[in-house]
Structure formats: structure tokens, C-alpha cells
């Protein structure tokens, strides 16, 4: 079968110790049997390893940081599209999603660049600080949470929470605090990096399990694969993981997708308590960095997302292989200074 040619732009090329999902998404796209995908990388920093992975990424362009706003991003994408004729864009960072969601219609109408992202409402209602309301709305267990804006609020937390508790940043980072001093320290550390508010969450004892999933925006779950981390780095990132057979997790995922009519990719982070109850602790509105495990287990979620973005009918996956593992590794690429110079000065490579 002749594969259709498509140009897909992908962000999240920082395949470092806290890896972005870009490279695994790219690998999934390149595995496609139906599409001959040419990857355009979009980077924020000249040292993102994906920029130099020429066997995966045809060309990379620097784009402005999310804080620069939608106009700067749009302007840059106009330029990139004038050269690359992008068909689909897949953003992979939480922090950039707001801009991409806001620009989605303009990108499609003005430049013909399609995407398949959560709606702004979905994006907002699953924010960490809105999660308790989200749980109530969709009838899902959520650990007790509270949003705080000042370090002074920590001293009174004992009235509502028992230690340990989890101190979380609005986009990334979470640390378990065993007393108020530790909570204060984590508050400063996380807020200086990601800003306010800080989310305080009840610590739930149990096993962490994650699901990578894709929703079609009409209530259908196109694919879902549950995974348990087997090796965790000091940043809490999975360095090895295994697919699970867990009907309860799948039921909860399908319920969430159906009730929220979730559109696009997501990662559900959950805790299964020793009593067997499942608590949703976070929803990331993008693919996880371990999404290639789903591809290896028989569900190519990045390819499914590409098809959805192109407006094609996608049949939901019905199975995946249980007991499939991923083991991550780091790899030293040897790169020429000339390439670093080019991306640093010209903003494209």
C-alpha cells in the first residue's frame, strides 16, 4: 500500500532525564503503516536532543516560549509553514497547550494546519487546582486537594490535612512533605519554578498506575493502555514500566472519556489503594513520555491522533499486549558545533 505523505510538526524534543513526549510521539508517527510522515521539530532550546536526531526529524525550528504569547507563536508558525507546508501539529507540553488551543482554529483556517487538541473548557477543568470539581462532575474519586497562594497558608493545613501530604506545582513537580517545614520548603522550590498557585493534595497510599489514552471528542475512547512504573528516577519519572491488565482502570478511563467527551491525547495518573479503590490524581492533556510503550503493545496512539486530526474515521483499538515493558536509556550523541551554532543563531536546523 502506498503511504500518504504528511508533514507533521511536533514539540517536546527535550529527551533528557525528565523527557518530553516529542521523540516517542515521533517514533510512533514514523512507525505508521498508512502515512509517510515527515517530521518538523519545534524546539524552545538549542540543546533539546531531538533537534540533532536527524534520522527522526527532518528539520527543526525554534519557536518562542509560551510566555511570549499567541501572536509571536502565530507569526513564527506562519514563517515555518511558508517553507514546510505543515499538515498537522502535535504540541506535547502542558505549558504551551493554552496557546495552541487558542490558535487551533486560526491555524487551520489561515494556514491549513490541523490539530486534535482538548477544548479550552476540558483543558481548564482538569487543571490540578480544578481537579476536585472535575471529580465531582464526572463521578471519579479524587484525593482531597486545596489550592494555596501564600506560604502563610501552610501553617493551618493541619486543620484540614494530615501529614504526609503532596505539594504540587500548577504544571509540573510534586513532592511529598512529612511536616510543615518540608511543605514550606517545597512551596518555595516549586513556586519559584512554575509560579502560583500551589496545590496541596492528600497523600493517597497505594500503587501508582498510569493510562495513556486518546479520545475522539464525542465520548469514544479510541485507545487506552495502562502502565505501572517499575523504575522511577528521583524526579519521579518512569525509567521502566510494564503494561497491565486492569479492567477497573479501563472502565474508569472509558467513563471519563465518555462523560467528558475528551478530545485528543491524555495521560491519567491514578493511585490504586490497597483496598482496590482507584483515585485520579492528575490528568495531563497530552501524550506521556512513555507513549511509545502503547505503540509497542499494539496501539499506535500518535498515528491514531494524526488520523483524527486529518478528519479520518478511526476505529477504536480493542486490545493491547499485557506484560509489554519499556526500559529507557540515555545515549550520548556526538554533534558538531556548527549545528549548535546554526540552531542558536538562525533558529532552524
Amino acid at each position: 500500500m502506498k503511504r500518504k505523505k504528511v508533514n507533521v510538526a511536533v514539540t517536546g524534543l527535550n529527551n533528557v532525564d525528565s523527557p518530553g513526549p516529542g521523540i516517542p510521539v515521533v517514533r510512533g508517527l514514523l512507525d505508521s503503516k498508512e502515512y509517510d510522515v515527515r517530521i518538523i521539530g519545534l524546539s524552545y532550546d538549542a540543546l533539546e536532543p531531538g533537534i540533532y536526531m536527524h534520522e527522526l526529524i527532518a528539520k527543526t525550528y525554534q519557536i518562542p516560549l509560551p510566555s511570549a504569547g499567541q501572536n509571536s507563536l502565530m507569526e513564527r508558525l506562519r514563517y515555518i509553514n511558508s517553507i514546510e507546508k505543515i499538515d498537522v501539529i502535535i504540541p506535547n507540553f502542558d505549558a504551551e497547550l493554552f496557546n495552541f488551543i487558542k490558535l487551533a482554529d486560526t491555524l487551520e483556517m489561515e494556514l491549513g494546519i490541523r490539530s486534535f487538541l482538548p477544548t479550552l473548557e476540558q483543558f481548564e477543568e482538569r487543571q490540578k487546582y480544578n481537579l476536585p470539581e472535575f471529580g465531582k462532575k464526572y463521578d471519579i474519586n479524587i484525593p482531597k486537594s486545596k489550592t494555596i497562594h501564600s506560604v502563610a497558608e501552610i501553617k493551618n493545613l493541619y486543620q484540614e490535612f494530615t501529614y504526609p501530604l503532596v505539594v504540587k506545582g500548577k504544571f509540573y513537580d510534586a513532592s511529598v512533605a512529612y511536616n510543615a517545614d518540608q511543605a514550606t520548603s517545597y512551596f518555595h522550590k516549586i513556586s519559584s519554578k512554575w509560579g502560583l498557585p500551589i496545590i496541596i493534595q492528600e497523600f493517597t497510599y497505594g500503587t501508582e498506575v498510569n493510562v495513556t489514552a486518546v479520545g475522539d471528542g464525542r465520548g469514544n475512547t479510541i485507545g487506552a493502555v495502562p502502565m505501572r512504573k517499575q523504575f522511577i528516577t528521583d524526579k519521579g519519572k518512569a525509567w521502566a514500566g510494564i503494561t497491565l491488565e486492569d479492567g477497573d482502570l479501563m472502565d474508569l478511563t472509558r467513563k471519563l472519556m465518555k462523560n467528558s467527551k475528551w478530545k485528543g491525547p491524555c495521560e491519567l495518573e491514578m493511585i490504586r489503594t490497597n483496598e482496590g479503590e482507584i483515585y485520579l490524581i492528575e490528568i495531563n492533556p497530552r501524550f506521556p513520555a512513555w507513549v511509545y510503550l502503547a505503540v509497542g503493545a499494539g496501539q499506535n496512539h500518535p498515528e491514531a491522533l494524526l488520523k483524527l486530526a486529518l478528519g479520518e474515521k478511526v476505529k477504536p483499538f480493542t486490545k493491547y499486549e499485557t506484560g509489554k515493558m519499556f526500559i529507557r536509556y540515555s545515549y550520548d550523541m556526538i554533534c558538531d558545533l556548527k549545528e549548535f551554532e546554526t540552531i542558536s543563531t538562525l533558529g532552524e536546523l
Partner: protein
Amino acid sequence: MKIKKNIALSDTGFVFNPASGDSFSVNPIGLEIMKLLQENKSHEVIKKHLLETYSVDKDTIEKDFYDFAKMLEQFKVTESDEKKES
């Protein structure tokens, strides 16, 4: 007590629980016991088999079998005959 249906048990003694993602290794006698449990053999039948096959006294069998069965239960690879364990 029997081994849960979804537990994968290989001939090398590798045990995989697909619900939790946990995996374990058991020695040849552990493997033999787990296979007999998979065949729904009762504890008494298994203990009798071990007593006849290996040079070991009844008290040691009782103690070691009890320990092993408890360990399997703790690792959630077994379920009771009447009620499914978590």
C-alpha cells in the same frame, strides 16, 4: 486457595501478575507447588506429594508449606476457593 487465573507461570519459575505488573521468581519446588495449585490440587494432596517426593519430615513440610502459601497470598497471586481476593 488457588492461583488466580490471570497469573502467568513459566517453566523457568518466572511468575507475572498482569493486574499489578509485579513479577517474581520461584525455585523449582515453588514452581512445582504453584503448578499443583493451578491444577486445583488441595493443600493436603500437595503436602502429601511433597512428603513422598522429597526426603523431608512432615513438620518441616507443614511449616514451609504454610510460609509459602502465606507468601503467595501476600503477593496477591492467589484467591480463595470461595471468594476472590484483591
